[in-house]
């Protein structure tokens, strides 16, 4: 019984879509350092499709894994689909998170939503 599932550890060890998108048209940052978790999401949206997504995360193993998984779940998807992303979906895709780490998946959902909000604001919708 490891602390985390294999999936969590895989996404923690080899996080997908790490980094910055210089010409992102949707950026969101949630959490705060005081609580020990900050997630920043960069979106490149074209024709209502999430062409690219990258993240930066300050946080624990499950925060990093949740960010990574969240980007995978929305990459290449229509914005409308990304809007429907839930923290449960993130946690499930990771084969579960310990109860006291569920807030990490919540943060990932919020980071995506925040970046999408930013995109909508920028595009004036």
């Amino acid at each position, binding site marked *: 019984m490891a602390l985390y599932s294999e999936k969590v*550890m895989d996404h*923690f*060890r080899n*996080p997908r879509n*790490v*980094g*910055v998108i210089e010409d992102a048209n949707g950026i969101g*940052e949630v959490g705060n*350092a*005081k*609580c*020990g*978790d*900050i*997630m*920043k999401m960069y979106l490149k949206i074209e024709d209502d499709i999430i062409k690219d997504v990258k*993240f*930066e*995360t*300050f*946080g*624990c*193993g499950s*925060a*990093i894994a949740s960010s990574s998984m969240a980007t995978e779940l929305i990459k290449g998807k229509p914005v409308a689909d990304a809007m429907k992303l839930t923290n449960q979906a993130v946690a499930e895709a990771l084969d579960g998170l*310990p109860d*006291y780490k569920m*807030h990490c998946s919540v943060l990932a959902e919020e980071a995506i939503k925040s970046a999408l909000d930013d995109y909508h604001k920028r595009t004036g919708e």
Partner: protein
Amino acid sequence: MIYADNAATTKMSDKAIETMVSLMKDTYGNPSSLYEFGQKSKEVLEEARLKVANAIGANPKEIIFTSGGSESDNQAINSAAKAGEAQGKKHIISSAFEHHAVLHTLNKLKKEGFEITLLDVHENGLIDPKEVEDAIREDTCLVTIMFANNEIGTIEPIREIGEVCKKHGVTFHTDAVQAIGHIPVNVVDDNIDMLSASAHKFHGPKGVGFLYVRKGVKLYNLIEGGAQEKGKRAGTENVPGIAAMAVALEDAVANLDNYSKLVTAKRDRLIEGISEISHSALNGDATKRLPGNVNFCFEGIEGESILLLLDDKGIAASSGSACTSGSLDPSHVLLAIGRVHDVAHGSLRLSIDESTTDEEVETIISSVKEVVEYLRGFSPVWRDLISGKREFIL
């Protein structure tokens, strides 16, 4: 595996294991039984008590065996509180960075109407005996200050604090769980009235500890029942565990000088190597600390992810107290020495011992450097720090 979490628990010494196994097999009689087979167990028990007493300069009659450090802390503090209450004294002095076994017990007492003063531990993690003296009141029934801190390893001026307590006639308890077997402790010279210890912190078994209670200090039971331990701690005695603890302690104390020299050198090399990481800071005084303790904060990253990556590299380490991992709050110890939340989250404790090789020390240093650099590489906080959007704290 490079085991660098000896402050959480230690590997039992071969001698302790052998002692335990041989007693489990051949000396399982109940020490309270009349027949010879039981009296043999009693003999082993009393030999162990003598060894433990000798190791801390106490009289065997002043040693009560318990199930570990937490139980010892609970019994000592509750007992002093009860004795105090009987005299109308309901004020207790402690420090802000005690172990939870102490702090939670004090919290419970607070709910029962006790007043608790938690002293400042300052930036270097050291309590000032003068401040202990200033805090003592007419109705103070107990001062409880740890001998050495479990997270940042600082060694408190116990002898001086004990002196102050003696002068004012206040009972003085010290949680010496991290100190016993690691640095010299003498209950008489150090003016200690009660002292808690736990075997698994000095290469003894888990689930065994002891409580020293100076002759003349009133002790109430935490566990009521049979007449074991002179009626002060009920329960069939864990003779194999107790004897294994005594053997481990005897060896640790006999080897203290050597241990201190060897381990301190390795610790200082670790501190030196890790200090090369920018925007990092050693937690706790650099010299008044346990030989094996290294504790750092790294700006811009979080502790758990450091640990997991070190684990991948075969290094077992900790971030604050093992007991509190799983909690979301940063360590209360780091907050107590003034680290702000942001920074307190990014802590790493390495607790080494004699068996840690120089090669392992170097591996730890380079691994920590790699991991910190890697995590900072995609930390939004670090990005803000280096881009000047956020100010460095360390």
